[in-house]
């Protein structure tokens, strides 16, 4: 009943007043309002629906991938209210009113985000399945460094934070790429960071 308590905590009124536990009666659903890639979306969702499944199965935004469904691979990474998160580890109803950017919102095939273009140029991918998560993470990581948020490998917390290969590798380690494009991804991110600076 995690869904119900989480929903209650966020003061979302279930549209079906259900005191019975889910699994024995009609599922409890709630109206959820999200801003996804700049568009307001209203959904009626099972309280158990993850943010990832809300995007993939309800909004048909399948760019965010399901690799493990429990926060171990990073393929589902989205940028929510400015921070990257594993969308499989959070329920959609916990994001009432959130601003969500998925890979589809970063850029489109004819209008690529610089990080997307850099991944193509440096071949920072192979099968492509972890790629949207890597790119969302990559964009957010550069913002985190710019914002001065430290990582495990940040040596000097008082000095201006640098985009080093060690920082990129540490911060990107929640995004697994089994094809093994890491070396190329670091090069893509380094190039984008340089362009920004």
């Amino acid at each position, binding site marked *: 009943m995690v869904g119900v308590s989480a929903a209650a905590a966020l003061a979302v009124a279930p549209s079906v007043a259900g005191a019975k536990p889910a699994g024995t009666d009609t599922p409890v659903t709630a109206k959820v309002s999200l801003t996804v890639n700049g568009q307001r979306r209203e959904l009626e969702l*099972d309280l158990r629906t993850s943010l990832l499944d809300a995007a993939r199965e309800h909004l048909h935004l399948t760019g965010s991938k399901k690799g493990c469904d429990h926060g171990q691979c990073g393929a589902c990474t989205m940028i929510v209210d400015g921070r990257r998160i594993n969308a499989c580890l959070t329920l959609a109803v916990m994001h009432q009113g959130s601003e969500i950017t998925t890979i589809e919102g970063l850029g489109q095939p004819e209008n*690529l985000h610089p990080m997307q273009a850099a991944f*193509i140029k440096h071949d920072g991918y192979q099968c492509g399945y972890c790629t949207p998560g890597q790119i969302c993470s990559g964009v957010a990581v550069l913002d985190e460094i710019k914002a001065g948020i430290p990582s495990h490998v940040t040596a000097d917390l008082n000095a201006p934070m640098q985009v080093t290969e060690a920082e990129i590798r540490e911060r990107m380690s929640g995004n697994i790429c*089994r*094809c093994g494009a890491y070396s190329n991804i670091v090069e893509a991110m380094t190039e984008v960071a340089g362009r920004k600076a």
Partner: protein
Amino acid sequence: MKFDTPAGRNPIDRLKVVGRPTDRVEGHLKVTGTAPYAYEWHDPRASLAYGVIVGAGIAKGRVSALHLDEAKAAPGVVAVVTHENAGPLGKGAFYVQRFLADPKVDHYHQAVAAVVAETFEQARAAAALVRVDYVSEAGRFDLAAQWDTAPVPPESASGGPPESVVGDFEGAFAAAPVRLDETYTTPDQAHAMMEPHATIASWDGDRLTCHTSIQQMNWGVRDLALTLGIPKNRIRLLSPYIGGGFGGKGTVQADLALAAVAARLVGRPVKVALQRTQMFNATIHRPATIQRIRIGATRDGRITAIGHDSLNGNLPGGRTEPTTASTKPFYAGANRWTRLRLATLDLAEGNAMRAPGEAPGLMALEIAMDEMAERLGMDPVAFRVLNDTQVDPMQGGIPFSTRPFVECLRTGAKRFGWDRRASRPATLRDGRWLVGMGMAGAIRAAKIATSGARVRLDGRGVVTVEVDMTDIGTGSYTIVAQTAAEMMGVGLDRVVARLGDSDFPETPGSGGQQGGPSVTAGVYAACLKLREAVAQRLGFNSDDVAFADGMVRSGNRAVPLGQAAQAGDLVAEDTIEFGDLSKRFAQQTFGAHFAEVGVDADTGEIRVRRMLAVCAAGRIINPKAARSQVIGGMTMGIGAALMERMDVDKRRGFFVNHDLAGYEVPVHADIPHLDAVFVDEVDPTMSPMKAKGVGELGLCGVAPAVANAVYNATGVRVRDYPVTLDKLLDRMPDAA
């Protein structure tokens, strides 16, 4: 076309498009999340239901009772598929695993039921309400316990004879002045591709269409037909995008079989993905091995005897891991003996994972070579150079088609700075790090097989290629397009490559690193036919026509290519077939891997600091994608060296660490900049493309290079993969 004599000069040799490091043609779709993978096909008209599989909670025995009432009564549930309502289910021709306990249970997490409901959440919740009673039987889960008793298996269709002998191994080994006799173990490994096995199945009358994720479309159709007991021509499989495979998606797995069964049962399309936690025990994996290697040599380092005895386990009828494949042709030596043995284990099926045979075989052999070099007081590179052979010592001395192994070794040694390696282990320090260098050789069979293609030219001059080949991240779309562009004399922007549809001409698909060379050769053959059709349509003498820059030229006439299709599309189809060149020449790919590691002198923590691969694989059709294949193999090889192992619970009989937190694969922080280069060569005995595959070569030899570097850093020899710090700590050199 039949390819039975080595290729001469042909249009590919112009290298205007082929051989160039072009970006992937489908890249813009992958980086924007718009490439559709199996679970993601959306048809607003379809009344789709969701299936969630329930896996067996025992390793061996049978289901004695299924309690389904609660699950069936749960909200949204449409049906519960079990052996009681699934109908008879066969199995495929490649895997021995069965897709549903019936009620016999063969291995842990074998599917017992699939719950179908209106939504994923409902199906998942109801799956948790399925209760199963089992009667357990004792199983066999301990490979090492069968070392003394396991038999030699019958010869398999693909692996060659399980035992091979040249000369008198025992006699020569006993007489050799310098000898090595050591045993190595490699663990059960998981493919752990990022996209879980997934299928959307829908029936239209007796015709079945499945969006799925498999590497070999022809095997998939064959095996699904066998499983369901229906003719192949009623099945269409679509896998245009596959989120990694590494051999683990060769053909039908439980998601595809049960989605098809469920969709038939409920009369609606059903989508099923294996949960990540099910993948490790419910599908196939690379089986653990125990390998005894014996090498005898003269005092000046010439190998006189080489022996390799290898054991793995499998479900009854399962395949033997051909670890000796690399030992047979790699090094010289007049007296040779190799043997494979197969134990019976009641664990999930062991089967192909990237470079089956060579990858685990070289993990053992290339440590043994390192140890032997040390016993001889020789440099490991020099020892390998000395024992190079230009003929296959196990195949009656037939010549290698090309074998620039020594060039790989020498180029790598120079580029890596091998001369800075300390020959005595545990003598180089960098602060708290003990630093070492290691290297290993690589060899992997260069297979090639019958492959078809269809090419279409339209009035705009656009060439469309259709093949049932898959792109699992390898670059198939791009090299297919490059081949057609080169042949038809157009730019890549005038070519459309369509892959992953079982209705397209048959290819070997992605496996055994034969996909790339085979499929491009098939496209070459079809394009030759299209060139003839174009010439004929334009009234040219087809012997004297040039295709370049989007134009067709003959004598003084030059016509835009598209003009040949003004009156209607021109379509050509052909299949390339291969003669006996693979019997007249030993066709292999070669490489050399170099690694530098740091080992924390106090904690034993191992970090790879840099790596280099030098590879020889014939013509490299796209150096950018090929390099990515190699650095991807190096990444996977670092995993094999340092972290990857499925742990067997020998009491209950299953792989314990069955998710991505417990089964550790390399992450960004584990991988330094990786360097990979290719030897400049072509192999005319392979095909008109003169190319070989490279995707599996990139993994071969990586893990032992890292293991040898750890030895060089610490002086601690680990023969039991993965090389983890607990195996170093009690033998580490004095930190003071």
